[in-house]
């Protein structure tokens, strides 16, 4: 029996993941050993510190281009860029998660296990400070996301998928108010997510079958699930491609589910609405980056040779996603559901960029991810501020006349909505322009046409909110806009500033994405 040795691992290259993983484990211990009164501060500092440290290591090895851990992990331009994006957006999300001044005890439930509606529950809603296990959970999720975008074989990618998903399911269930809605959202997300994972796994098995007979990295002819082997098999294999096509389809289902593309989007509005708003922002920004990072790598590296086969199908998915997101957004009456459908539509635009299998497509998609992430976090930050006695007032009719009550925040939110609508001098315009430009360059004109038409439809729900805020008279039930605490204010400022800067002077980030847009073979 031959001895199985550990593959050599370039620990330097995977330091960011190790830091986050270590910090999340420490976070679990903090939960156990630090007194309740100090936990929040300790956890907050620990999380921010760990993410910053990870970010520093990502920046530090900006020039690393390597495949390590036996071909399981690729550290290259897209990986480092996306990891950096996830970490920066993660910092902003943690700022939102850590806000405690808007509501007594913060936005999270004190003890998730207490039965909803019981006396103990009423007691904890008004008195108890929120639980702090949200921090290690977010760090675990971030670890998974970093692994997800770095995975260089399908199994590692699956592990990354699970590591990022499981904490997210839990985080969705931790809302302090409207707990049933929150728990329902978590359960729904979990059930559908489990299905999606199963699809992914089945696709993985089919692709493995397809690669049988292709020399793999380990030297035998047994095939493999690392992307290099798959790419070689796509080019050279004599096996019937049916296995390949079915595999691509199933893997795409798994990834598109996380990316919230139609017809795998049905969880999005419910989960976005039910989850605590900071967690929604975290999902809309970071999860989207991770999901599209993985999708880009799969489409470009592993299945790039079969792009003629999947482009029509995924193009149809992209068109459907844009239209479904835009049309359904028009009918929404809840701001969080509206933003959820807008997130679906944005997944469609991202898919348009991802389908342009060339350098420009890759670069523009990465740019879009960052630009959208900042804007959507700022958007949800404003949502956390508009409150009445029962918590956040998310029904759109309640937002009428907000411009009179609080011109500053209504103005900020107007700016964010205009960015979503893709109006010039916001990042929304630059990113849409870049993505459509890339698609047009790759010859997908019909996707561009659908894209611009859907963005025209999508402008209306945004405009409706703007009109409602400014041109309606405030009523009795118009909620107040709280003065944000330091953390939310910081998150909001970062998000709005990034939206503006990426709209006016996007060149440096575009340049960065262009330099990063090359996968290692």
């Amino acid at each position, binding site marked *: 029996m031959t001895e199985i040795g550990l593959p050599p691992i370039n620990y330097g290259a995977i330091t960011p993941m190790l830091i986050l993983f270590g910090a999340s484990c420490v976070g679990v211990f903090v939960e156990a050993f630090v007194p309740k009164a100090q936990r929040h501060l300790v956890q907050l500092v620990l999380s921010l510190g760990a993410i910053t440290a990870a970010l520093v290591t990502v920046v530090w090895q900006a020039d690393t281009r390597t495949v390590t851990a036996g071909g399981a992990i690729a550290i290259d331009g897209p990986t480092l860029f996306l990891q950096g994006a996830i970490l920066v957006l993660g910092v902003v999300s943690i700022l939102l998660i850590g806000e405690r001044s808007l509501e007594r005890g913060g936005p999270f439930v004190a003890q998730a296990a207490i039965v909803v509606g019981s006396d103990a529950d009423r007691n904890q809603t008004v008195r108890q400070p929120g639980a702090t296990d949200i921090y290690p959970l977010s760090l675990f999720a971030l670890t998974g996301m970093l692994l997800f975008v770095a995975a260089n074989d399908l199994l590692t990618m699956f592990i990354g998928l699970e590591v990022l998903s499981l904490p997210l399911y839990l985080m969705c269930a931790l809302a302090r108010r409207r707990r049933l809605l929150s728990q329902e959202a978590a359960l729904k997300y979990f059930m559908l997510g489990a299905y999606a994972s199963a699809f992914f796994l089945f696709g993985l098995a089919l692709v493995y079958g397809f690669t049988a007979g292709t020399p793999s990295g380990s030297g035998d002819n047994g095939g493999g699930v690392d992307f290099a082997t798959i790419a070689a098999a796509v080019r050279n294999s004599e096996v019937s491609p049916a296995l390949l096509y079915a595999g691509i389809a199933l893997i795409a289902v798994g990834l598109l589910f996380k990316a919230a593309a139609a017809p795998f989007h049905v969880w999005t509005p419910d989960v976005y609405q039910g989850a605590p708003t900071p967690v929604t922002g975290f999902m809309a920004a970071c999860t989207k980056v991770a999901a599209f990072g993985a999708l880009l790598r799969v489409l470009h590296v592993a299945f790039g040779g079969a792009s003629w086969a999947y482009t029509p199908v995924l193009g149809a998915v992209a068109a459907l996603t844009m239209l479904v997101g835009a049309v359904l957004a028009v009918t929404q009456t809840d701001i969080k559901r509206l933003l959820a459908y807008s997130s679906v539509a944005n997944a469609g635009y991202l898919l348009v960029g991802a389908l342009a299998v060339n350098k420009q497509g890759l670069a523009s998609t990465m740019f879009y991810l960052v630009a959208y992430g900042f804007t959507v976090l700022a958007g949800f930050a404003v949502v956390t501020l508009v409150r009445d006695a029962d918590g956040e007032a998310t029904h759109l009719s309640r937002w009428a006349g907000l411009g009179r009550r609080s011109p500053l925040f209504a103005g900020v939110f107007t700016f964010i909505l205009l960015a979503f609508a893709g109006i010039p001098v916001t990042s929304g315009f*630059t990113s849409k322009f870049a993505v459509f430009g890339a698609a047009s360059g790759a010859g997908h004109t019909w996707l561009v046409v659908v894209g611009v038409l859907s963005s025209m439809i999508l402008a209306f729900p945004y405009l409706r909110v703007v009109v409602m805020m400014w041109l309606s008279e405030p009523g009795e039930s118009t909620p107040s806009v709280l003065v944000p605490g330091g953390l939310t204010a910081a998150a909001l400022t970062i998000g709005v500033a990034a939206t503006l800067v990426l709209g006016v002077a996007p060149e440096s980030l575009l340049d960065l994405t262009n330099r990063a847009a090359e996968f290692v073979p």
Partner: protein
Amino acid sequence: MTAGQVALVATLALPALGAAAVALVPARADRAGRVLGTVFAALALVASLLIYRPDGGWFGYAPANRASAVRPWHELDLTWVPGLELRFHLGVDGISYPLVVLTTLLTLLCCAYTVGRSPGARPGRTLVALLLVIEVGVLGTFLALDLVLFFLFFEVVLLPMYAVIAGWGGDDPRAEAGAHRAAARKFVLYTLFGSVLMLVGVFTVVAAAGTADIVALTGGAGLSRPVQLAAFALLAIAFAVKSPLWPLHTWLPDAHTQAPTVGSVMLAGVLLKMGTYGLIRVAVGVAPEGARWAAPVLGVLAVAAIIVGALVCLAQTELKRLIAYSSVGHMGFVLLGVATLTATGLQAALIGNIAHGVITGLLFFLAGAIKDRFHTGALDDLGGLRERMPALSGLLGYAAIASLGLPGLAGFWGEAFAVVAALRRGGPLWTTLAVIAAVGGALTAAYFLRLLRRVTHGPASPVVAGAGGAPIAGVELAAWAPLVVLALAVGLVPTLVLGLAQGPVGALVEAVR
């Protein structure tokens, strides 16, 4: 940076600065804010006048200094976002200059008008700030020499105009509540539809040519025939929505009727010109083969617009709506001139643009003044204005006669020479179009005379007799006087516009032939 470049940037930057400054003025200093905005608008007008390059001469044109058909007097070319082919490339030449001055002038007049007459319940300083933002977008559109920058400025106009109509419009008490919102929505829907088509067109051109530089693109260099046809179709529809060309005009009457007076003036005076300017500069310039291919269709639609506009006007019962539909007819003449693709036709289109901006701007000011005084625009309720307010009805008569194209006033040149250009083009199609357009010109006279008969002549109606009928205020006179003078000046000395445009139009026609 040369002095010309400084003036170029100042023309664009002053309104933007003004909008920002006015927006910062606190609510209690509303009037001061409006005055401040007017000062900035005046400075922008001065800057735009300084752009003019005297060595071009009034009647001549500076010698060609390079190969392209677009030879700007002043040019500013800065890198902005090379990753998106976006350059901050501004320039002005004889085609755009008259429109630039028209824009700065009309914005100044609108701002000054707002100082004197604060519209409705909403703050006037915000309206002034929005007008200045609109000015930035319109001027940027006229000055941009980069396709992407052009699109960007084109888009900037959309939302402030929406806000002006939705926020300050709907002063008609008889209209159902929310009608102005519906009109504003319709305006946005149509314009966005045009914008997205234009965006696709821009992508098509940029992807095929590898550059977005209008100077380099003019003449259709390097674009294959299918690309040109596709690009022209997309861009032409986009500009046709804005112009508006029949049958894409239906947003216009609603928007005009519901908009506040200054909104109508801006809309008719300068916003519609973005469409025709874009058609000449971008669609025809970049895709000449597509333009030749589509010219008959464009011509037929333009003539249809003339006839339809005139017939609808004959049946109109509301003052502002009538003027709005008359815009459809006038812009039909402009588009007919463009469709001929001849030097005469393009010249006619340019002077028609300016004339329409001046005259229709004046007409909307007058209609606003009438509605202010009598709180109705229904022709049935008006009548006998001459007896109560001879000065106002005299001005209305002057503007209406100028608009119907009396020789010696500004409206004549554009319409007459559009017909002449179509006749000169020859062939059964163009001859027929010219004849029908001439008939449309006669119908224009008919409906304007009907308007005058209903509003100014006859016995004073109860509404007119009963209302106070305040005399013309100084601020109104100040806002109208430049337009009255210009309508006469352009009519008597058309070379004011034509002399400037002669060289560039000749070069353009040469390039697209």
